[in-house]
């Protein structure tokens, strides 16, 4: 059961990227939460969540994405979500009333 999921993060001068692929399920949620909290902490200015290679998104992951988007908004961090290339993933979510959060534009002044 379960295809191996890989979760990668990169952070450089407040600009971060999180990328995961394959099946993102409940067992990955705790790790993702910790990672998102870290990447949204100061001096974060931008976060890209790359879901382009995701083949399945669990409800728990989706909740974290919504919470992260809200957190980004509160912290005035630009948050961009790269949608799954597999359209079936998004369609499957929409069928049951779910969707990905929209991108969050930062209102924060760029770092000097």
């Amino acid at each position, binding site marked *: 059961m379960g295809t191996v*999921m890989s979760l*990668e993060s*990169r952070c450089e001068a407040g600009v971060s990227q999180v990328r995961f692929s394959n099946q993102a399920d409940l067992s990955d949620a705790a790790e993702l939460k910790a990672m998102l909290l870290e990447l949204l902490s100061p001096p974060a200015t931008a976060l890209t969540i790359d879901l382009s290679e995701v083949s399945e998104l669990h*409800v*728990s992951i989706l909740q974290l994405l919504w919470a*992260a988007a809200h957190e980004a908004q509160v912290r005035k961090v630009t948050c961009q979500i790269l949608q799954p290339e597999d359209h079936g993933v998004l369609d499957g979510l929409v069928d049951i009333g*779910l969707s990905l*959060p929209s*991108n969050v534009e930062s209102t924060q002044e760029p770092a000097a």
Partner: protein
Amino acid sequence: MSTTPCEAQTGDQFRVAFREEALDLLRQLESLLLSLGEGEADPEQVSSIFRMLHTVKGSGAMFGFTILSAFTHDLENAFDAVRGGRLVLSRDLIEITLEASDVMRDLVLNDDAGEQEPRMALVGRVRKLVAATTTSPQSSSPSSTLDEARPAMTATSGPRRWRIEFAPGLDTMRYGADPALLVRELGRMGSLRAVVDLDALPSLAEIDPERCYMRWKISLHTDADLLQIREVFLFVEDTCELSIEPETEDVQPAPSAAVAQPAPENPADATVIAPQVTETTQDPRSGRGPRRPQDMVENATAIRVATGKLDQLVNLVGELVTVQARLSEIASRYDDGDISAVAEEIERLSAALRESSMSARMMPIRDTFERFRRLVYDLARDLGKNVRLSMEGCETELDKTVLDQLGDPLMHLIRNSMDHGLETTDQRAATGKPVECSLRLHARYSGANVLITVSDDGRGIDSARVRQRAVEKGIIAADAALTEAEVFGLIFEPGFSTASEVTDLSGRGVGMDVVRRNIEHLRGSIEVVSHAGKGTSITLRIPLTLAIIDGLLVSVGEQYFVLPLAQALECIEISRSEIDNAEGKHLIKVRGEVVAYIRLRDYFGIEADLPEFEQVMLVTTDAGRYGLVVDRVLGDCQTMVKSLGRLYRNVNELSGATVLGNGGVALILDPHRLVQECIRGVMPATRLLARSPVMGDTPVRASTDNRNSGSNSPKIVPISQTAA
């Protein structure tokens, strides 16, 4: 750049729990199927089967058993059609479902799904049946793949729109359920529009990633009725808030947008969902409000506990019982009211604790019996015999450990009966017997034991042939004098078989010896009664529990014995002169009834000073009432049964040993076997060789030596007094 690879975990604990539940369900499914007759579609039974299949399918999908879930789907459809009156419950469907239940069991037990072809062949047969008989156009066009199949819906008064509000319990996902799958399943029922409310979602820092904070508002347009919609939520209904109502004109339909995104007050929040407030209303049809998680906790009547934990609990209680006995013994030595009161209270509590912990391990024998329905069904079909299986005493409870070890012996007895005991239809007709054979499984309590009987109305055991075969095999001498019971007992000898040909089922002489070995391992015994042409009845006598018993502590000289309280009737005093005047006849008159007694002093060859008065403990056994003569009756005691070990395995009269409060050891008597051994009066001289736990280093052995009693009783005597 830092990289953190992580693997998706398997959620093993949920899969283990699912496996257990699914296996239970499949057992129940099998029993129900076997109880159904062709064309007899008892609506309640058919609905039960449908629900079981639905459960296996639904929870299978939740816990990652996707092949199982897909495989079960068409069967679920078929039984949905049966309960909807669109499909006749045929023998074919029952047979296919039985075969399918075997496949499902394999899929539950094995991670490797094996070959797909046989599964698809079964699915094809189900679809063919459904397509051939169903009147529903939806069901008559089988899907091209398993995943594409759609459940058939009961045609009611046409499609209808339902308003569903679904708020999964916070811990739903932690228990392995995926709410998205449930909503997706609803979507398969028809046309669905859903809105998710994320109002309850905490901040990123506060969110528990394994909890579910979503609520769904759903509008569903479907043919399905309320029951069918509710069944989707079968596994989470106890932990979620759920409201299902038909939409009426005055009910606001769900918005058409997939996700509600109302205009935010603060433009900065424009990209985030502003959650809607949803109130769950009561279901007017069911007359009850939504069930909340706390309801589930209050309403829970049973939980699953690993047997290992129960074993540990009973072991600890056993140790407590031993320590409590020690405390009571110490209290009896001190004339202190406070200590005595505490000791009595501890005794009372430990007795109650013991009762509770033991009762947690007791299970009805029903499941064990029910397991054999399928075996009998399959064997009857393969052997061309018409067999009616009946079960009685299914509520009789036994210790789980005992039940686990009964499966094999019962299976061998049933196979033997089916293969050798019961005749074919032609043979029965020729002898004027009813063509339908009878096979009966029966359980009942008998004191501290349970008697389990497998009986048939077949041809019976030919004792002459058994004897002849035993002589041929060198098991007995040609001139051996054996009672009929002893001759029947030969069928349990290793390698013994009277079958003229070896079949797939039996005839190799393997099996019945396993029965005896297993039953003796359980400290049980076997009794065979057979009448030529009328049938055979084999009774297993099994102790209720192997762990702790209520006993009566008695002593002979320095030796302590424990007598199971359940078999003790009363205690009578007997004087030395009465024994002397009996002229060797071991008989006593109890209120006009003559009762035979066994003097343990003589039987076990215990040398100690004779008291002026001895005590006769009257006990009940299968052979009637008997007296056991001891020096003193010390009182009742809770007894943690300890194994006597390998050296004592052939000492039938003893069922174990226990540690006393004073640190000494008492042997636990098995009155039934003790009486049997006495009646038999035969015991090969070299049968026992053991070391008595109370006689220190003095080895003892059984002997027919009579020098202590002058009787013919076998006994345990110090090895120094016997021939080497």
